[in-house]
């Protein structure tokens, strides 16, 4: 009897150890994982690759990426961490705030900063350049409009749990030394811009309408309201009227996206996910309305701006430059790296009627960012110092 017990126990242990590989060999259906996973190829061994251990590293990466039952393990572990400990796994960029509000670590780091991040001289130089570009383009009846986009920690400040917050007092350094300094510099140079943070605070709309479950991004409705302001600034700068309207509309949300698990904890069971999202509808534009071309330059917030701009049918050619080095064409999956000052760059980046420069709060750090690069590149082409 004792021997049978021992045999059974050993068999169970061996079965547990071998189960993932056996499941993979038997092609047992795994729990689907949401996320952007890069396929890992099985490396070919060679004397040199074994000696320098690159084969071992490659094999380990391949083995872990293709392990059977991985989906079940990941979902089970995430679910336990979330419900038993109210945590996300260590190393995850998503953090849990109060009432299940999700934040991304970069925004929390920004919220918790206690030092001035940039050289005031660099900010001054940037504001001077932006003002000069705006003036130069306005003289050609075109617009260059900076758009300050708030971080989620600004909009959901009260949902930042105490354990994710440093006690820096109010107002926080991120407000005083970054946001307000940027505004002061732009105002001092008479730059016409859109303050998305002020805009959203003044809307008095339900917060969930402006922001979704995503740990970082605003809703398409918020993007629409920002574009409404962009249209107003365009008129202010060029005299050309561009009527832009937004009506909030709640529609079934996208359950999965290759990139979403980083921001929505989709690989965790029994977490309130986004089943409804707020987007915007637009009236039909008059047939004779001008259709200026538009280019959005900046962070992933530009995606919702681009979507809404295309959805509105108010614009002619619409493009997005993701961090000014990747061009998004008509089809969104048609993305190409692009080098400044090349013929292709000039064809795509110049002669645009409205440039919207995304100044995302978390990344407001003049010095060596896409904002500096793009303004320098465009400034050079326009003959602006």
């Amino acid at each position: 009897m004792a021997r049978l017990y021992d045999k059974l126990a050993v068999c169970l242990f061996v079965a547990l150890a071998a189960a993932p590989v056996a499941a993979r060999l038997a092609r047992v259906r795994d729990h689907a994982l949401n996320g952007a996973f890069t396929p890992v190829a099985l490396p070919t061994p060679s004397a040199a690759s074994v000696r320098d251990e690159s084969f071992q590293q490659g094999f380990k990466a391949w083995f872990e990426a293709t392990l059977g039952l991985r989906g079940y393990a990941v979902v089970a572990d995430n679910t336990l961490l979330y419900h038993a400990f109210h945590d996300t796994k260590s190393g995850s960029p998503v953090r849990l705030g109060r009432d299940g509000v999700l934040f991304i670590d970069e925004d929390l780091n920004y919220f918790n900063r206690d030092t001035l991040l940039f050289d005031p001289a660099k900010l001054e130089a940037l504001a001077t350049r932006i003002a000069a570009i705006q003036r130069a383009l306005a003289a050609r009846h075109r617009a260059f409009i900076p758009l300050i986009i708030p971080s989620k920690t600004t909009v959901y400040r009260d949902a930042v749990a105490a354990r994710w917050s440093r006690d820096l007092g109010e107002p926080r350094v991120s407000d005083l030394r970054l946001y307000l300094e940027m505004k002061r510099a732009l105002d001092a140079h008479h730059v016409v811009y859109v303050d998305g943070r002020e805009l959203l605070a003044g809307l008095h709309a339900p917060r969930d309408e402006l922001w979704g479950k995503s740990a970082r991004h605003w809703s398409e409705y918020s993007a629409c309201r920002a574009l409404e302001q962009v249209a107003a600034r365009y008129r202010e700068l060029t005299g050309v009227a561009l009527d832009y309207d937004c009506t909030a509309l709640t529609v079934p949300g996208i359950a999965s996206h290759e990139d979403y698990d980083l921001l929505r904890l989709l690989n965790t069971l029994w977490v309130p996910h986004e089943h409804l999202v707020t987007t915007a509808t637009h009236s039909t534009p008059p047939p004779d309305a001008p259709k200026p071309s538009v280019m959005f330059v900046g962070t992933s917030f530009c995606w919702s701006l681009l979507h809404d701009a295309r959805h509105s049918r108010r614009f002619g050619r619409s493009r997005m430059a993701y961090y000014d080095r990747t061009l998004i064409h008509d089809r969104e999956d048609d993305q190409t790296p692009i080098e400044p000052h090349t013929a292709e760059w000039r064809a795509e980046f110049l002669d645009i009627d409205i440039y919207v420069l995304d100044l995302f709060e978390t990344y407001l750090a003049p010095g060596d960012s896409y904002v500096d690069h793009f303004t320098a590149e465009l400034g050079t082409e326009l003959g602006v110092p």
Partner: protein
Amino acid sequence: MPFSSLLFIHLFLPAFLVAYYASPRAAKNYVAIGASLVFYAWGAPRFLPVVVALGVIDFVISHQLARTRRKLLLAAGVTMHLSVLVYFKYSNFFVGELDALLAHGGISPLTWTPVVLPIGVSFITFEEISYLTDVYRGDARPARKLSHYLLFLTLFPHSIAGPIFRWKDLEAQLAERVHSWQLAREGFERFAVGLAKKVLVADSVALIADGVFGMPADQLTPGLAWAGACAYALQIYFDFSGYSDMAIGLGKMIGFRFKENFDRPYISASITEFWTRWHISLSTWLRDYLYIPLGGNRRGRRRALLNLMIVFTLSGLWHGAAWTFVLWGAFHGAFVMCERLLGKRRDAVPRAIQHIATLVIVVIGWVFFRAGTAGHAFDVLAAMFGRVGDAIGPPTADYAPHFAQFAFVAGAVIVLAPIATKYRAWRPRLPLAVVTAAGLLAFAGSAIHLTNMRITPLIYFKF
């Protein structure tokens, strides 16, 4: 390939066990050698030929030693192994220190390509030295078969992070050992306990330790510094004892019975006792092959105290080529000396105070062990003893998520609770079914967690 890796648990281990048990009795050692060589080559392919060559040389020398008992031959063998250890482990350190001295004199630094430390070199070297010494002393017979000696050196459950084996303890088992389902079941249960200690506790409290030791000195407060030091005390215990549990469990799966390497060290009432419970294979090795040859207690009290200090300082240096490890060793050595001087007068101190004092000393010692530099260690110690930084630290959840806090409390309870039974005959015994079920749960839970988490390398791998 750490034991706490998906590759080991889900591929290497089941594949090895199937091959091992499917092979006839006479071939089992060869299967074990083959698997051990693959295992070692996976992590240190360039050092494998050195290990095998040293094993062959040892085999030849040991037979000569058994015949001639020539001290010179023993000295040559020991010097060879120490040279290997010094070259691979300490040359970067010595060159770095020399460069610092040269820089003081305005001389340009030496041209030097840093040497990569092969895994397990410190453990293997000590095993080789003890083998030659035991054969020379007549305490052990030389290996009859080269395959037995190579298996002794490279046997994968212990080859990269101990425990440090003695040839005389394993010789008989290498030639003949009993395989049983009961032993294999116990092995799996032990392995599961070790895996859970490493994956669920050590890697979780490591977040707290890493967070606190990664903070600038001006952000540290006494509470934070103590939390970080205690978290590291838990991390290193669950990490290394977990590894030893896994090694012992793996041994049982293939019929070996290895000696224990840990015996609930944090229930010690003195530093001397601590060293009879912590990394037992190292402390007994140092006693038998360093302390006693230095004269031990035989040359008077002063010399015995000096010998203790030498042994502990070298023990620190064995752990790592850095002044922090030397300080850690000397720190422990100083307290062991004090305890030796106090003798029985220590018994007058209430037992609770002895336990608390021992824990505090051990935790303080770990600060030297964990800190990147001596200066960093003293910054953390200053914070532990009252210095409050004037800067605001990071948010708590950044370094102490709830699951890490839970692991901290659970770990503390696990290591300290046995104090309650230390002075009584009563020992709790769990029903076998509960032990097996807990083992299965720990194994599955750890493997699941491992699939989802970043793996922290075993601390003792770098030694």
